[in-house]
């Protein structure tokens, strides 16, 4: 259940080139620029906040909630609980209580100490994981890395609704048997996320830049739907979600504004050869063209990063495009400059 208070607000700042922080949607450091209020129609309530004792989505699910907290539900039952708890305060409270209780069960385990070899192996593997994927074929996460470190990515904005949306970035490795095997193993994957992937896959046409373009910034990976992993709480892949800052939130002055829709963009698989690659997010606009979000997308060495920004006015349903930072970056997002994916 996401709220927009406390430490969450730290995500609205990202490090700039000089190591300082700048405020989302403001390309300058210093006093935050007020975020524009949008005229985006709100067609559904903030999806992760329980709003009433009752529910529009059916009977209470108290009999299923203990099973949810204990991991004992089938996928359809789990989905039913999640949907219901989004709107039912009573069941959301019971769910939170029950999960808190279930979270104590691990401490029943009798103390045991692993072999020291585990630590040595783990950190050797971590040290190796920072090298390009081509040299780390032995680990099961290889599917999550770009085959080529400099490919393209476009993300479907598809955002006439401010509700949550989720997309995934994958690479050519998504076609590999290893990745298919890994996906089959993802028992924790969330059904809502999968459903959203399926819908978004209809919009997504993976496209690559002409590699011969010496001027434009290169795009970075190839989009495909379906690569993600989820715990009960967290989608571990590229996710965009809309967040309506509710009046009961505690927006930080100058960064969040009540009643405004913010988008959160999580990415992975964007690792580059450079020590700390910097990317920018380009939003397709009604009438053509892109608006570049001033806040850079900072991606760590593991290829993951995130940025939160205000949904621009007149954003269209086209594809969000992530490029390396540069003056001509959003030009490379234009469909007529893109070639079909290989």
């Amino acid at each position, binding site marked *: 259940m996401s709220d927009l208070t406390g*430490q969450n607000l730290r995500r609205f700042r990202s490090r700039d080139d000089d190591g300082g922080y700048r405020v989302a949607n403001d390309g300058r450091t210093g006093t935050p620029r007020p975020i524009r209020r949008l005229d985006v129609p709100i067609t559904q309530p903030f999806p992760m906040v329980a709003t009433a004792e009752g529910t529009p989505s059916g009977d209470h699910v108290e009999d299923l909630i203990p099973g949810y907290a204990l991991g004992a539900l089938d996928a359809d039952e789990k989905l039913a609980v999640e949907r219901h708890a989004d709107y039912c305060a009573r069941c959301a409270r019971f769910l939170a209580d029950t999960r808190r209780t279930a979270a*104590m069960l691990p401490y029943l385990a009798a103390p045991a100490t692993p072999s020291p070899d585990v630590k040595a192996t783990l950190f050797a593997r971590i040290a190796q994981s920072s090298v390009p994927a081509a040299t780390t074929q032995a680990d099961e996460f290889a599917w999550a890395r770009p085959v080529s470190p400099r490919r393209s990515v476009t993300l479907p904005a598809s955002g006439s609704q401010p509700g949550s949306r989720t997309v995934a970035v994958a690479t050519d490795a998504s076609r590999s048997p290893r990745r298919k095997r890994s996906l089959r193993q993802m028992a924790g994957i969330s059904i809502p996320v999968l459903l959203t992937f399926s819908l978004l896959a209809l919009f997504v046409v993976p496209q690559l830049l002409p590699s011969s373009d010496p001027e434009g910034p290169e795009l970075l990976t190839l989009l495909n739907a379906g690569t993600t992993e989820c715990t009960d709480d967290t989608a571990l892949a590229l996710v965009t979600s809309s967040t309506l800052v509710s009046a009961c939130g505690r927006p930080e002055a100058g960064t969040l504004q009540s009643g405004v829709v913010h988008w959160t963009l999580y990415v992975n698989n964007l690792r580059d050869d450079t020590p700390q690659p910097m990317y920018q997010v380009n939003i397709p606009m009604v009438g053509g063209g892109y608006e570049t979000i001033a806040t850079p997308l900072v991606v760590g060495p593991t290829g993951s990063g995130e940025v939160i920004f205000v949904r621009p006015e007149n954003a269209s349903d086209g594809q969000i495009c992530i490029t390396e930072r540069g003056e001509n970056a959003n030009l490379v997002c234009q469909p007529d400059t893109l070639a079909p994916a290989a």
Partner: protein
Amino acid sequence: MTSVNAATGDQETREQLSDVDLIGQASQGDARALEVLYDRYSRVVFSFALRIINDQQIAEELLQEVFFRAWQQGGTFRSSKGTFLTWLLSITHNMAIDEVRKRKRRPQRSDSDDPELVLAGVADGGPSVEDEVWSRALRERIARALDTLPDAQREAIELAYFRGMTHREIADTLDEPLGTIKTRMRLGMQKLRDQLDGSEVGLE
């Protein structure tokens, strides 16, 4: 020597940091920050994994995978949703249950499927690590709380959480109606919550 001292000092500084700060640094590529987290929680994770999997070697492999996943995907941790340790144990539970379910699909030695092993584990002894969150006192308190439940309720909870059974599978295994199993789980978890109310210090 100076650089060695500086490195030692850096690590000592890291050891003073909160879990949230450490996973933040780890997600930016600081493996030493993850090392501090590993030193703090590897035993908790391993103990929990071993409890579910009941196989030392596989539990160690899973321990490595859990921390490798934390390394790769620590940026997705949200402190607003719970502690880092809760997040880590949630990953552990998911992965361990996956493993249990995979093993169910393969021929297994029958002793590893003996429910008595799970139930008996509650009272198992072991080396006491008093300074850990999962100290003996806490474990015994949770075990006592679990012991106050009627056997049928405790069994339903154990089979679900530590055996990775769905409540339909539990109903089939125990030859009880599905509704009965749901009710046992609900009543059991409610009673457990009441018993443990106020015990969550350090957990959330």
